[in-house]
């Protein structure tokens, strides 16, 4: 059984455990809510899921071109004039604490399908001090492959290279552990396992990383979000920078709006953590925004 298959099997077990544990829950326990305002921190998924069965969410994530620290910053209007990336996502909760998500992003014309389940929930009385959410996501690059010549080979230099349908897929699995430490401060950490079926010469199919993220509430509706994802293995060759993002968030019940500064233009994590990182130490960053809307559906009442 390959590494990827073991990861997917683990995710399956975790999700089914979560589903069955809900069925066995006894007396109502009061849980901590609002560890994060939305299902995303900035680029990374948060420990939150669409909060109620049969409810759904809609999300728009947008990243402009790079802000460069020279006269181009004004000329390109902080990157707004440059080619941008955008992702639309639709989320649906078929069961309590389980969320399905389908997304489409411009870069690579990528479709992504994800399953996210909240396995553990932090409780007010501290019987459970943490929240734990598992996520599994598969992305399909639907853009045209580049032309292949008869002098293109696989890495062994012997087998003639041809793009295959499987080469379009990449996978992302995470275990997200989060806690709301105080009404003004929440944090989470998430081991990330990414697998890409096809990588460029010198690349690694397997990418391992750890995302750390925090939310500082600064007003009734406003928060500052920070996240960073050190790559342990399989990042872009020669890259030493850590993908990172910060955002200012305005959140109300059902709405989340974020102004974002990110180190990359990619949004789907399989591409974000395996792409070169902007030289943020020199002032290169990508401006962007996230908009999320959750639409609550009234639970079904008891049948008469």
């Amino acid at each position, binding site marked *: 059984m*390959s590494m*990827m*298959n073991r990861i*997917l*099997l683990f*995710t*399956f077990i975790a*999700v*089914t455990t979560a*589903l069955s544990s809900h069925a066995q829950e006894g007396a109502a326990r009061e849980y901590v809510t609002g560890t994060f305002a939305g299902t995303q921190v900035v680029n990374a998924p948060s420990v939150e899921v669409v909060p109620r069965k049969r409810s759904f969410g809609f999300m728009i994530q947008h990243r402009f*071109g*790079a802000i*460069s620290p*020279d006269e*181009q910053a004004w000329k390109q209007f902080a990157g707004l004039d440059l*080619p941008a*990336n955008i992702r639309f996502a639709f989320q649906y909760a*078929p*069961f309590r604490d389980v969320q399905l998500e389908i997304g489409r992003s*411009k*870069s*690579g014309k990528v479709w992504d*399908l994800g*399953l996210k389940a909240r396995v553990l929930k932090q409780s007010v009385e501290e019987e459970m001090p943490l929240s734990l959410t598992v996520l*599994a996501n*598969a992305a399909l690059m639907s*853009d045209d492959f*580049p*032309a*292949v*010549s008869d*002098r*293109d*080979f*696989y*890495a062994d*230099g012997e087998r003639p*290279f041809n793009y*295959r*349908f*499987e*080469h379009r*897929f990449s*996978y992302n699995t995470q275990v997200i552990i989060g806690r709301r430490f105080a009404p003004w401060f929440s944090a989470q950490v998430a081991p990330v396992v990414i*697998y890409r*079926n*096809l*990588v*460029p*010469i010198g690349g690694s*199919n397997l990418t391992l990383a750890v995302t750390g993220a925090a939310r500082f509430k600064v007003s009734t509706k406003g928060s500052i979000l920070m996240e960073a994802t050190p790559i342990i293995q399989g990042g*872009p060759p*020669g890259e030493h920078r850590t993908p990172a993002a910060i955002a200012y968030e305005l959140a109300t019940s059902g709405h989340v709006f974020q102004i974002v500064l990110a180190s990359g*233009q*990619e949004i789907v994590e399989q*591409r974000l953590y395996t792409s*070169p990182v*902007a*030289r943020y130490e020199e002032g*290169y960053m990508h401006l962007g925004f996230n908009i999320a809307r959750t639409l609550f559906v009234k639970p079904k009442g008891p049948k008469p």
Partner: protein
Amino acid sequence: MKKITIITILAVALASCTKDEGPLYVPEPASAGDPVDTAYFNAEVLPIFTAHCWTCHPPMGDMDLSAAEAYNSLVGVESTNHAPALRVAPGDPEGSVLWNKINYTEVYGLGMPPDGTALSSEELATIRDWIEQGALNN
């Protein structure tokens, strides 16, 4: 029902796993007496710029990569942001801003195209050959 849905999704994901690395472009081995391979700007290089670059570098910009002006905008011209480095230094791919940009080396800022849709290995090889052979307007 819910378990069937999850199993179906995971089964599809498992079935499509593979582990590949490529493509690796291997130039045709040259035999003794063969003339030096020639890369042609107008027939081979220019169509690459038209396909990948022209949309964001149209005639009204400061680096015009349209068919009429691409050569004059690139070869021997100092980079706007990275002077004195040349956009294309004839005979020196590694010293050319263009070559670094399209290979995402980040030596000269962001790689191109900026959305990560890299040129194919054959296109890269064509541009490298053209620069190495003097970046002629042929």
